[in-house]
């Protein structure tokens, strides 16, 4: 690397801090707003410094919800989001790793057609098949259920491809040694392949959890009951009423709560997150 003299370094530091400020400012405003009085905000008199209503606002948000008639505690919404995100992440990893295992480690009739059937789903995001999928979920009586929220989002060609790619790098001799050591296909999978895939699974989990938590269009369509709302759908419903009635501190507290789990995951598991992101885009 070419060392640079002081002045240029200061410029670099300055640009980075400006970037960080731009990136962080909307969130700072949200945090500040979530600690203030609604009347002040509605008048356009919001202060840029934190107010003193932190505890009451967050208490109301988590345990009560807005003051409207169809209110729902955000705590419950977060639980729904959590269940959906976990179901999507774990479900995707589970079904993808076993199908990738079959495709890489076995030779069987229709192996390649099956691979292509899975692969092509990359081109069918939920947005392009939204109403027919809705209809099927309705026919299966899965509206307003966790299964309906998660199942249609669970099949993932990306995860299957990722595991396939990883399995291809596992030396053949490991399988041969296992065979000589008397391990059958399931044993080899459980004793050797699964432990070796741990890091890949963790990285994938981080990404899938974030994507699952942040799902919007699908939950919006298939949840009609308030108690099945995810937090992303809930926050949108909070600002559907006319402006004057929107309880901005609660909306902002909900926004902060909606960001908290995925942002925490990114920051706390940065290495896995970066790895997962780069791998899934390959």
């Amino acid at each position, binding site marked *: 690397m070419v060392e640079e003299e002081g002045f240029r370094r200061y410029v670099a530091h300055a640009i*980075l801090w400006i970037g960080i400020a731009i990136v962080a400012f909307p969130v700072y405003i949200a945090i500040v707003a979530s600690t203030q009085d609604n009347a002040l905000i509605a008048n356009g008199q919001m202060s840029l410094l934190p107010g003193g209503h932190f505890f009451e606002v967050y208490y109301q948000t988590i345990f009560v919800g807005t003051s409207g008639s169809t209110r729902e505690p955000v705590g419950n919404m977060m639980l729904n989001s959590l269940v959906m995100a976990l179901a999507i992440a774990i479900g995707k990893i589970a079904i993808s790793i076993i199908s990738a295992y079959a495709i890489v480690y076995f030779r069987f009739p229709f192996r390649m057609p099956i691979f292509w059937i899975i692969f092509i789903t990359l081109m069918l995001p939920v947005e392009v098949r939204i109403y027919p999928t809705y209809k099927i979920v309705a026919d299966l009586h899965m509206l307003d259920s966790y299964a309906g929220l998660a199942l249609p989002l669970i099949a993932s060609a990306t995860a299957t491809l990722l595991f396939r790619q990883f399995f291809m790098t596992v030396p053949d001799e490991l399988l041969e040694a296992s065979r000589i050591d008397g391990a059958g296909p399931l044993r080899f999978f459980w004793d050797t392949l699964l432990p070796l895939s741990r890091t890949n699974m963790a990285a994938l989990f981080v990404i899938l959890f974030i994507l699952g938590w942040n799902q919007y269009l699908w939950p919006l369509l298939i949840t009609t009951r308030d108690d099945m709302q995810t937090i992303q759908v809930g926050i*949108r419903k909070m600002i559907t009423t006319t402006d004057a009635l929107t309880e901005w501190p609660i909306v902002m507290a909900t926004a902060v709560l909606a*960001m908290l789990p995925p942002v925490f995951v*990114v920051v706390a598991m940065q290495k896995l997150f970066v790895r997962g992101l*780069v791998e899934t885009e390959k």
Partner: protein
Amino acid sequence: MQKQAIFQSKLLPYALVAPQLAIVLIFFYWPALQAVIQSFLLQDAFGLSSTFVWFENYIELFKDAAYFEAIVRTFFFSFAIAVSSLSFALLLAVMADKPLRGSMLYRTLLIWPYAVAPPVVGVLWIFMLHPSLGVLSRYLRNMGIDWNPLLNGDQAAALIILAAAWKQISYNFLFFLAGLQAIPKSVFEAAAIDGARPMRRFWTVTFPLLSPTIFFLLVVNIVYAFFDTFGIIDTMTRGGPGTSTVTLVYKVYSDGLLGGNLGSSAAQSVILMVMVIVLTGIQFRFVERKVTY
């Protein structure tokens, strides 16, 4: 494509692919097929009967000025979001790639917005730039701008582009940084010895070597702008004012659910499917090039 060392088993591999295959067939292929069939049908006003109308839904769509506008708007949004977000992210990545103290901290502080969901992004930005109570709107008005994105379509579009680009910065930053770190440092050293000043080094060495990453991110950003902006639009403007922020995906949603026009919505889905296939195709061609690069 396949291993030399494999297991022999007749039924086990089918059992292993069965769960994924079942989900894919039930929730991907069947609905996609339904969308295609539906797009050739016209339903009566009560949804009781439908008639086969060949390409009428498609012809109607292309005669519809609103649909044509939505296509143009979607592409405009895509490019505006991609270009603004990519250039800002590249600037930050080039700075963060320098041997600075605290570069890991910078990275952490710049990548977390990836985790913010589109509807939340929408809420954050509409709150900041809300015509009556937004903290930034005051300054805009003080500068003499008649700021009201809830009434002014151009301002609404600008707001959406701004918010969507903001969310995408962290993703682009991360990939640019990875791309920069993959360039051997000796190349920069050679350029420096060859007498290239820093700005010149950037345009003659860094930028060309980064071009595969740039192209890759361009495609990803366009796909993002097609689909993931839905949450931002739905919380910020709901397509309004008028139809000035209706994108293709938003139109599929609103025509189908709100308008109840399932045939047209299905035809739009099919067109979107074709677009995704083209975009994915471009992406994969590129991935192959990246491998050889």
